[in-house]
C-alpha cells in the first residue's frame, strides 16, 4: 500500500494498554493476541483514520529518540502486519 494511504483501527478489536507503555491487541473473532512495544502502541493509539503510514513515521521520529532512517519502511511493515491480522484497515484515499 502507498505510504499516503490512511489507516484506521478495526473497532471490533480490543486495544489493552499495559504497564510501561506496552499494549496488547486482541481480536475477539479469531482469539488472536498481539503484543505491541511502546512504539507500536503509540501508532495504534493514533489509528483514527486521519493519518497515513508517512504521518505515523513523522510522529514516531518526533516523539522517540534514536529513530533509524528507514523508519517509514518499518512503520509500513508494522501496519501491513496489523492489517493482515485484521487489527486495522487501509482507507481509500
Amino acid at each position, binding site marked *: 500500500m502507498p505510504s499516503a494511504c490512511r489507516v484506521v483501527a478495526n473497532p*471490533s*478489536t*480490543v*486495544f*489493552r*494498554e*499495559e*504497564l510501561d507503555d506496552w499494549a496488547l491487541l*486482541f481480536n*475477539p*473473532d479469531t*482469539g488472536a*493476541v498481539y503484543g505491541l512495544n511502546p512504539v507500536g502502541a503509540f501508532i495504534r493509539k493514533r489509528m483514527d483514520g486521519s493519518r497515513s503510514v508517512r504521518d505515523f513515521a513523522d510522529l514516531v521520529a518526533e516523539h522517540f529518540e534514536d529513530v533509524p532512517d528507514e523508519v517509514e519502511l518499518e512503520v509500513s511493515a508494522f501496519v501491513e502486519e496489523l492489517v493482515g491480522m485484521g487489527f486495522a484497515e487501509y482507507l481509500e484515499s
Partner: protein
Amino acid sequence: MPRVMRTPRAIEIDITNRCNLRCEYCYHFSSEGDVAADLPTDEWLAFFDELGRSSVMEVTLGGGEPFVRADLPELIEGIVRNRMRYSVLSNGTLITEDMAAFLAGTRRCNHVQVSIDGATPDVHESCRGAGTFRKAVHAIEVLQAHGVPVAVRVTVHHRNVRDLPNIARFLLDGLGLPSFSTNAASYLGLCRDHADGVALTVEDRVLAMTTLESLNERYGGRIQAAAGPLAEARMWREMVRKTAEGGAAGDCPGGCLSSCGGVFSKLAVRADGVYVPCTLLPGIALGRITVDGLEDVWNNHPELERLRTRQTLPLAGFDECGGCDYIPHCRGGCPGLSYTLTGSPYRPSPDACLRRFLAESGLGADTFLPGNGVTP
C-alpha cells in the same frame, strides 16, 4: 514477582447459584460461593459493558449450572457485544440442539466444558445422579456437530479411579475428542461431607497417577491437568529431579508460596455479584459489581494486594515445612485449597505437600525420578 495487568485479562463468573444436579463431590454448595440469590439480567449486562470498557478479553461462565438460566443467550450476547470471548462450564444435561446452534452462531465461544466421569452410565452416574450420562454425551455430540469446541473434564474420585483406561478410550477414541482434562474430587465443598465414599484415598491417588501417566504416554500427551493426580505427579517429578540435582536453596518462586498466578491476571465474581479473587476463594469478598468499579477493586483492594504478595512468603517460615529437603523447589500449592483445608490462603496446602504424600503413601522419593513409574 509477576507484573499485575492494568485490568484483569479474564473474569470467571458464577452466573447462577442454581444447579439441576447435586454431584456428591461438588465444591459449590457447601462453600461460601453458595449464595442466596442470582442477579437479574440487567445487572450482568451492565457489568459486561464495564468489562468491555476495561478491555477484558475473556469471560468464563460457571456456577451452578449456567444453562439453567433462561436468559443465558441474552447474557452471552452482552459478552459478544462487548468484544469478549467466552467459555461455559457445564454438566451438559441441559444443552439442546438449538443452544448448540446459538453458541456456534456467536463465533466467540472458546469452548464449552462438559463434565464426564465415566465411560458408562453406572460409573458416570455414581456421583452425578441417575440419567445424567446419556444427556451429557448427547451435549458433546450436538456441540461437536455444530463446530463448538468441547473441553471434557474428568473428575477422578474413589468410584471411577479404576475406570480411567475405559474413560480415556471412550473420550479419545470413541468420541474423537482432541484431548481431555483431569482433576480430583478433593476436600472442597460437598466432598467434605461425603469424603469416605468419594474422595481419593492415598492408594487411589497413587493408582490415579500411575494410570494417568501411562495413558497420557499411550495417547501422545492428550490428557491434561492443571490440578489433581496427573498435575501433582508432574509437579513432584520436577521437585524430586531438581532436589536430586542439588539446586540453590531458598530463591523464589521455588521456596515461596508462589504457585498461584491467577491474582495477577484474572478476577472472579460470585452469583450474588460479589467480587472474589478466584472461584476457589469465594469467602474473600472484595466488593460488589456495578457498585464498586472493576478497575478500582483490581488496583486498590488491600486483600488482593496481600494475595499478590503471597508469592514472597518463604516456606521455610512455616512450622509444617521445617527441615524439608524440597523447600527450594516447592511452591506451596493452590491458596484456594489451603484456605479450605487450613482456614488460611497464606499457608502451604497440605494436599500439595510432597513430603506428606510420601510419608502417607510409603513411597520413596525415587518413585518420582525420571524413568520411574509411580508404583508402590
